[in-house]
């Protein structure tokens, strides 16, 4: 935690403690802990998207406005797999009538026919976790094709051109998804075993049901932490990662050593696409996927990247969690009663404060995005 972020957190804590004194303290503590959990959860999604954005920017120098669309495509990989698992044989049941009075259609999923009712239903039930295996290769290949087919032609173009082409690409991708899946949100459930909530408060000495938190959100947080750790581990402890880090620091020198850094950076684009896609897959039980969900996350994720420091991977993760937590606190009634509307501007307000006091962001490096 940098010294610039401490005053923001401290100010928040003072507001909350101050309001807590005038309200039920225990109730406020419940709410604070719940909002910390919420913030970590939101922050995990922001951090995962921002991590991919930063990877692409740090390696290829491309400002990728299509990154939110990659998150959305990941989510729709889960939807597609769910639809695939639910592919059914259709028979007519003369004992039941449809809405027009014709014999009703009865659908039996192929998986149920092949593996029996119990096993077939279990496979369908676990479609979201299984979609990780489905989405990973798709997203890597998609990222690879995207970089080779489009993005590479814009490396030497101004950032404004990159933004325009990637933003246009994002719109094209979401319209394609809308064409095939419709505009409405599509319910995508977590496995039955993860339905329900954990009584978190009991662990902390609160009364039963004081602080409960959905199991799947905890799973999402753990998954995000694991994914972030894997990306850092990959970059830190593998030869491939070492070369990539060297290329991020000094691309020309690495090239002079005879290493084809472009090929590695292309793979990094695929990896970043996969990170965004997997974040989308696991987010589907939290937010029913819709074609514009990527855009909803994109702007916030860019703020996260800027606040964290352009090109800084730890900065992106730190800023993701920081802004997620602050956004959750800003939604508390006690805070909103003091500063109406704060929940809608908090992220931008904090971004302004941080950038005024530290123009390179929390962990930005000198020379990145600077003439």
């Amino acid at each position, binding site marked *: 935690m940098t010294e610039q972020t401490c005053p923001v957190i401290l100010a928040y804590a003072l507001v909350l403690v101050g309001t807590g004194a005038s309200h039920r303290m225990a109730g406020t503590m419940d709410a604070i802990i719940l909002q910390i959990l919420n913030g970590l959860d939101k922050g995990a999604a922001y951090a995962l998207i921002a991590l991919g954005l930063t990877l692409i920017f740090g390696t290829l120098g491309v400002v990728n406005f299509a990154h939110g669309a990659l998150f959305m495509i990941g989510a729709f990989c889960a939807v597609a797999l769910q639809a695939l698992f639910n592919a059914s044989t259709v028979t007519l049941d003369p004992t039941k009538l449809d809405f027009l009075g014709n014999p009703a259609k009865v659908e039996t999923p192929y998986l149920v026919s092949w593996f029996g009712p119990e096993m077939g239903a279990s496979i369908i039930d676990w479609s979201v976790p299984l979609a990780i295996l489905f989405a990973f290769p798709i997203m890597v290949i998609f990222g690879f094709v995207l970089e080779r087919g489009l993005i590479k032609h814009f490396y030497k173009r101004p950032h404004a051109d990159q933004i325009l082409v990637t933003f246009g690409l994002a719109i094209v991708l979401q319209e394609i998804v809308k064409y095939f899946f419709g505009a409405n949100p599509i319910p995508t459930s977590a496995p039955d075993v993860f339905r329900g909530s954990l009584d978190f408060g009991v662990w902390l000495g609160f009364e039963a*049901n004081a602080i409960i938190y959905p199991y799947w959100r905890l799973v999402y947080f753990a998954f995000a932490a694991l994914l972030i750790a894997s990306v850092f581990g990959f970059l830190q402890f593998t030869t491939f990662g070492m070369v990539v880090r060297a290329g991020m620091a000094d691309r020309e020198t690495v090239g002079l050593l005879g290493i084809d850094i472009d090929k590695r950076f292309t793979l990094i684009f695929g990896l970043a696409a996969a990170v965004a896609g997997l974040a989308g897959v696991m987010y589907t039980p939290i937010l*029913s996927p819709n074609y514009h969900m990527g855009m909803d996350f994109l702007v916030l994720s860019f703020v996260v990247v800027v606040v964290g420091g352009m090109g800084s991977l730890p900065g992106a993760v730190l800023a993701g969690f920081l802004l997620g937590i602050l956004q959750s606190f800003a939604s508390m009634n006690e805070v909103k009663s003091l500063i109406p509307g704060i929940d809608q501007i908090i992220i931008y307000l904090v971004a302004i404060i941080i950038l005024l006091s530290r123009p390179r962001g929390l962990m930005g490096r000198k020379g990145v995005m600077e003439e």
Partner: protein
Amino acid sequence: MSNSRFTRRGLLKSGTLAGVGLAMPTIFTSRANAFTNDPTGGTVTLGFNVPQTGAYADEGADELRAFELAVEHLNGGGDGGMLSTFSSKALQGNGILGKKVQFVTGDTQTKSDAARASAQSMIQKDGAIMISGGSSSGVAVAVQGLCQEAGVIFMAGLTHSNDTTGKDRKANGFRHFFNAYMSAAALAPVLKGLYGSDRAAYHLTADYTWGWTQEESIAAATEAIGWSTINKVRTPLGLGDYSSYIAPVLNSGADVLILNHYGGDMVNSLTNAVQFGIRDRQANGKNFEIVVPLYSELMARGAGQNIKGIPGSQNWDWKLQDDGTKAFVKSFGTKFGFPPSQAAQTCYAQTLLYADAVTRAGTFNPCGVVEALEGFEFDGLGNGKTLYRAEDHQCFKDVIVVRGKENPENEFDLVEIVEVTPVGQVTYAPDHPMFAGGALGACNPGA
């Protein structure tokens, strides 16, 4: 002696001829522009302004299907749908006043400025004489204002805010869909029966005109049956993740969560509330309950199993058993393969009502249409006996109270009808405080 060839008689003749000549274009112009977009050929153009992109695009698509069906029936095609059950027998399936009906479409994008722009284009470029459609009260209010200024009739689609026929009512605008007050009046007695009269409600409300009026209406109605209101929290539109707003509800002292959200917002907030175990909790010694005052079947599909058992209200449901509903469902279902939504039904009904009013008035002049619709009582369009009240241009009819079905038989069987609340129970005075602050004004024929 003068050689001039001007004579007094000649001057008078020339003056008269010149006067007539000069007046001629004015006569023709005034004749041609008696009202905006007077259809002079063999066709008449209607403008259907629906969300074709954006979050409500599926709802817009269903509205367009209904409009297409209505036009087909007006022109004598198909099985006639509700033309055969409509109590008014003015329409003969030969277009409107003998002119073949054609239509143009616009995309509201569920944005007021985009909706106004597309409506304006349809009026000015395509010659649309009536505008209908929309899936948002913000859009409806904006387009209604535009139609008033332009001098065309606006037959509102799906708009539920009290303001549409309240403070923002306009003489050229008519709403068939019910409103937030009616939802509250129908729901409150059912909620009392389901959950008792000692309840504490917490409102999460979409922060725009529809959300505000629904929150006001539901809070007033539930307080009237003895419930208390713990908090009213406004949430941004299109938020996505509502967890930060749901978490404070858990230990707020409330035992009922009222979601004044619609569409995608409703799907997300309801899903989040269920994930946080609200329906499995107890508060104040009672089961924690969730209420969604305005249901949308199309959007409810997005909420999946989370809507089971949750009460709400609808303007219409395809499972109603009156002749009008049966005819419409058969007609729509046969053509498109699935039952119509309430948005489709209200758009279909509005198109027929406009055509019927023109036919009865014998003119496309908006002021004639307004006169024909004001105080018009009808039946056979799926909602039972209905009145288009003259004072505010709001339709008064029965309201459907529904609950999410526990064991749906198919993907369209999402809700079950709990009660059909009679119109008398949802009727209010034209000067009711929740609808105050506006006036219809005079009808505007435009031109």
